[in-house]
């Protein structure tokens, strides 16, 4: 094996995926790096625990049902005090439920990590990927 062959082999080994792969490949590699991280793994585990916890799922579903109802009622001014109190009670119950609390905490940690990654991308590139891609409307109107 000649020296030049060794040099070429080493150079090939050192080539970054960014040089040899498609944009979609590199995007997939980025997603895989996120998925391999502790925050994502904890989020997945917490999500699965939530799916396996019938009590938590029922509480979550009830909260979302009430929350959606209140949001709709708010549009036409039909929010009653007892509806708000009921939602607050459910919110308290959820925050005290270990499976839900774990899921929410893992979700918040993952979102924070994703925002940090997006901020790094913004600094490196000068483009905010998330802001350019996500819908400009919040969907409220």
């Amino acid at each position, binding site marked *: 094996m000649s020296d030049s062959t060794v040099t070429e082999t080493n150079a090939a080994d050192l080539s*970054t*995926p*960014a040089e040899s*792969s498609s*944009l*979609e490949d*590199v*995007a*997939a*590699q*980025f*997603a*895989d*790096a*996120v*998925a*391999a*991280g*502790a925050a*994502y793994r904890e989020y997945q585990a917490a999500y699965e625990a939530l799916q396996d916890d019938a009590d938590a799922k029922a509480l979550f579903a009830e909260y979302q049902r009430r929350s959606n109802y209140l949001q709709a009622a708010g549009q036409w001014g039909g929010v009653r005090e007892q509806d708000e109190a009921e939602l607050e009670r459910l919110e308290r119950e959820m925050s005290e439920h270990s499976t839900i609390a774990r899921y929410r905490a893992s979700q918040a940690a*993952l*979102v924070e*990590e*994703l*925002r*940090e*990654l*997006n*901020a*790094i*991308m913004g600094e*490196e*590139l*000068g*483009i*905010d*990927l*998330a*802001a*350019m*891609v*996500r819908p400009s*409307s*919040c969907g*409220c*109107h």
Partner: protein
Amino acid sequence: MEAAQKEAVKMFARKIGEEPATRRLFEAREAFESNSELYALRLDYTRLVHDLRTKQSEGTLVEEDVAELRTLEQKVNGHEVTKELSEAQAHMADVLQRCNTVISERLGFDYASSAAAQRSCGC
């Protein structure tokens, strides 16, 4: 944040930076900022908006003022440099959307929605 993720996002940013759509966007941004004719129009527009707000608060705003603003707005938006910037932004958004689809499919949720900085919609 883990080192592997930091490296992956930097590599991803570098790859996006190599895309023709990115170069086009940066050139369009540069042209938008440096075109003196467009700069003058934008300055006029900003001044007019300010004047019209003052008139509105004073109750002296007339239909002609609004028409003047609309005309100026059309001039700014219809300027070749502005149109190129809009098209370059749309092209870039398409490229990034493709990436977002790949990432979101792998993660199981919409990446862009989660990664975007928190923003109040004001609703």
